């Protein structure tokens, strides 16, 4: 592990980048303006690396583009200055900016697949930058491109240059855009969410590369991310943004070890601290409610020639069992098959009927084939709170519908019942007559939970229910969920990529990868001592930020982050 920044400390050299009282406003189609960057000031010394952290909507991406003198259509710098090498980018004309972009300042965009021209081989795209921006001849550009690809750790550069972006892996694409950005060795390199699109294993490799680049280069670097682990890994300084303002800034070690703002603490809280004891309580093992044995699943691909030719396996021989009232976590990255598993149990996808047994009886694949009682007993809460409520219907309707459907309640009775469910979940009854858009994300998800519990289910499947929520409300939601689960004695299948959620809620966990179960067992045991390297990578990637502030946190270990 490189912890070089700790030794180097904050540079004292003349700052290469000076941002002063920068304001950027967005003018909506309705003519109203919205200040997305509000009075931001900071300095950056040559060779230093600054992390800009914040949740989506905090203005960090807009700030990142402004550092290249760019504002997306509809937005504009209204005041303040950005001095790069002494020149105020805010006052330069577009052609003057264009001359500097790529050479003096460059950007590595967030989504490498979308950021590469899909109909052009990647080699040509790099050569284009080299020819036009570094002024190389076609031949020299070709050679330099191979060289750069090699430096980026891309295998077989000669073959790779002729590939199209979609033929590359996510890590390879990220390396290609990195190569394009550093082609002219810019004084300022801005990386926008450099790891978001990558899986954990690749993320580690790419971070490693960035770290090496940082060491090798003289220029300053700005990394925009929502992931504090990344900041902890490679930045000297951090700048935490919320609603367009800087709410906290300073050296990484200082900020992470003693966050002044609740918001920062929330962000940090989202990172897992295994060192804390799991708060999940083990229920006494009851009779088995759900049993899955050797479940495999493939999507049928439409074809004219064969009736149901099968795609690649999504699930491959998955087995699990769940007792009444038990909470089981299922973790894995996207594509691991965990959502498909939930979908099959819930009855969204027709699986093998014999593979799933519910309450001792085989469970038909699709919800439509199940009995009304079975449907009532298995409920689901979905990932995106907004999409899980019909935007054209009042939220009360959503909660009343299962009451009417499964419990045969009259409309008035159902309304009363829905109101009391709302109260239990800390929602005002007045919200019943609102439309989903009028609710916050956390409220929406609580309504979705209320809808699920309205049916008084025996099994609740929660599919990434916190991932669309701000860190600040996640904990609250999980508290409510745990409370309802305990009260109704519902068994839960908690599908998530967020280890903190599992750590907090589920005494037992399954780790999935590529449609298989890699590891299963008590959460404590697996998290503290992962047997499988993949599990270890998952855990390792998730806990670095926590470690960065470890020393101080140890003293406040009993304090809840929120």
């Amino acid at each position, binding site marked *: 592990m490189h912890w070089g920044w700790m030794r180097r400390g904050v540079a004292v050299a003349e700052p290469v980048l000076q941002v002063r009282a920068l304001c950027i406003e967005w003018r909506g189609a309705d003519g109203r303006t919205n200040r997305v960057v509000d009075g931001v000031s900071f300095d950056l010394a040559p060779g230093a690396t600054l992390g800009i952290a914040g949740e989506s909507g905090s203005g960090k991406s807009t700030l990142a*583009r402004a550092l290249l003198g760019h504002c997306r*259509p509809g937005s504009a710098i209204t005041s303040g200055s950005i001095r790069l090498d002494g020149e105020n980018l805010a006052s330069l004309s577009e052609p003057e900016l264009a001359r500097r972009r*790529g050479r003096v300042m460059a950007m590595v*965009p*967030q989504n490498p697949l979308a*950021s590469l021209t*899909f109909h052009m081989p990647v080699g040509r795209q790099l050569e284009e*930058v080299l020819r*036009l921006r570094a002024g190389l001849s076609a031949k020299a550009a070709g050679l330099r491109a191979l060289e750069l690809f090699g430096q980026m750790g891309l295998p077989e550069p000669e073959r790779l240059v002729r590939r199209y972006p979609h033929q590359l892996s996510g890590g390879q694409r990220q390396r290609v855009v990195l190569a394009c950005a550093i082609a002219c060795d810019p004084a300022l390199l801005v990386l926008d969410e450099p790891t978001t699109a990558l899986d954990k294993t690749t993320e580690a490799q790419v971070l490693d590369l960035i770290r090496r680049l940082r060491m090798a280069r003289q220029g300053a670097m700005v990394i925009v991310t929502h992931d504090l682990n990344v900041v902890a890994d490679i930045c000297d300084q951090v700048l935490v943004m919320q609603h367009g303002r800087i709410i906290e800034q300073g050296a990484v070690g200082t900020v992470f070890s003693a966050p002044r703002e609740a918001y920062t603490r929330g962000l940090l809280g989202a990172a897992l601290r295994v060192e804390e004891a799991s708060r999940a309580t083990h229920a006494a093992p009851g009779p088995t409610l759900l049993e899955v044995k050797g479940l495999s699943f493939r999507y049928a691909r439409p074809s004219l020639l064969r009736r149901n030719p099968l795609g690649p396996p999504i699930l491959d021989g998955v087995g699990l069992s769940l007792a009444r009232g038990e909470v089981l976590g299922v973790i894995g990255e996207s594509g691991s098959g965990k959502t498909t598993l939930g979908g099959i149990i819930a009855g969204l996808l027709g699986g093998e009927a014999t593979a799933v047994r519910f309450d001792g009886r085989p469970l038909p694949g699709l919800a439509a084939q199940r009995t009304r009682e079975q449907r009532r007993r298995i409920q689901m809460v979905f990932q995106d709170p907004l999409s899980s409520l019909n935007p054209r219907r009042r939220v009360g309707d959503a909660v009343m519908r299962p009451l009417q459907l499964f419990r045969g309640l009259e409309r008035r009775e159902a309304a009363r019942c829905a109101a009391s469910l709302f109260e239990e979940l800390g929602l005002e009854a007045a919200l019943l007559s609102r439309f989903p858009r009028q609710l916050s994300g956390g409220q929406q998800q609580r309504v979705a939970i209320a809808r699920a519990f309205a049916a008084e289910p025996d099994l609740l499947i929660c599919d990434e229910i916190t991932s669309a929520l701000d860190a600040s409300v996640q904990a609250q939601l999980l508290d409510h969920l745990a409370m309802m689960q305990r009260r109704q004695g519902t068994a839960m299948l908690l599908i998530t990529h967020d280890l903190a959620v599992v750590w907090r809620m589920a005494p037992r966990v399954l780790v999935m990868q590529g449609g298989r179960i890699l590891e299963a067992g008590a959460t404590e045991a697996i998290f503290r001592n992962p047997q499988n390297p993949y599990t270890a990578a998952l855990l390792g990637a998730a806990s670095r930020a926590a470690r960065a502030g470890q020393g101080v946190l140890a003293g406040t270990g009993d304090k809840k982050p929120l």
Partner: protein
Amino acid sequence: MIALILRRGALSLVTLFLLASFIFFATEVLPGDALDVSLSADEIANMPAEVMARRKAELGLDRPILERYWGFLGGLLRFDLGRTIITRAPVGEIIAMPLRNSVALAGVTLLLALPVALAIAMAAAQAKGRAVDNAVSGAAIIGYSIPEFVTGLLLIAVFAVWWPLFPATITASTNDPLGVLLAAAPLAIATTIIGSVAYLGRILRVGLIEVMAADFVERLHLSGIPRWRIIWLHALPAAMIPGLSAAALYAASLVSGVVVVEMVFAYPGIGAELVRAVTRREVHVVQAIALAAAICVVLFNLLADLGIAALDPRTRR
């Protein structure tokens, strides 16, 4: 790619079969049959019933519909489009040249309209929301909103009658070489082009605007790549992809859809032939033309698919 073409082809065959059947049975709702409509009112009024019955039997019009349907399908399998009911002329012979002419008109229209539409779309997309864009989009919408017959008649009035630059009506023959025919049809071509430019321009503009907002365009912009290069080399091929499908469908519909223009200018195309065939209950001709139009749709779609595959490596497998 080949698999894609094969699958498309197979699906298209199903569509063609359904279409042929649909047309066959739909024409049954029409009052009268080919014999009735080939006779004048005087003839029908005065022809004795037994003479009528005998002639229907001669023409096979008295056979039950299913029998005629099987006969028709059998013919199709043998690539035999059948003969016209009254004159016993081979249907293929009747529709071949009009079809050629309509395809030529559609082709010329597209060839001329596409670059213009592209230029307009680029001008508009480059200046989205500004005066140029508003003017161009406005003109496109206006062009799109004026009925073809109005455009055509006004063009004739202005450029053939008041200011006689071009022929008002097409006197060239169906079988004339395409060059002669198209040279005789400048106003007809202009009429179709006006509508096409408006339509295609709108679609391409939206496509371009969408692509210009794409991440890769922003990356290139932030790399300091010149704007013209971004537009021509990066954005345009990408914007052409959704445009191609729309243009293909549009071109296919042009082949049989320019009836109004063909009528106004007396262009010897398949649209006018179609109206005539419906009028005369020449069921086989109607079916043949409908099939030809459908095949055009299929072919143009296939062309678009090939074009898309050329532009978009992601679709190549």
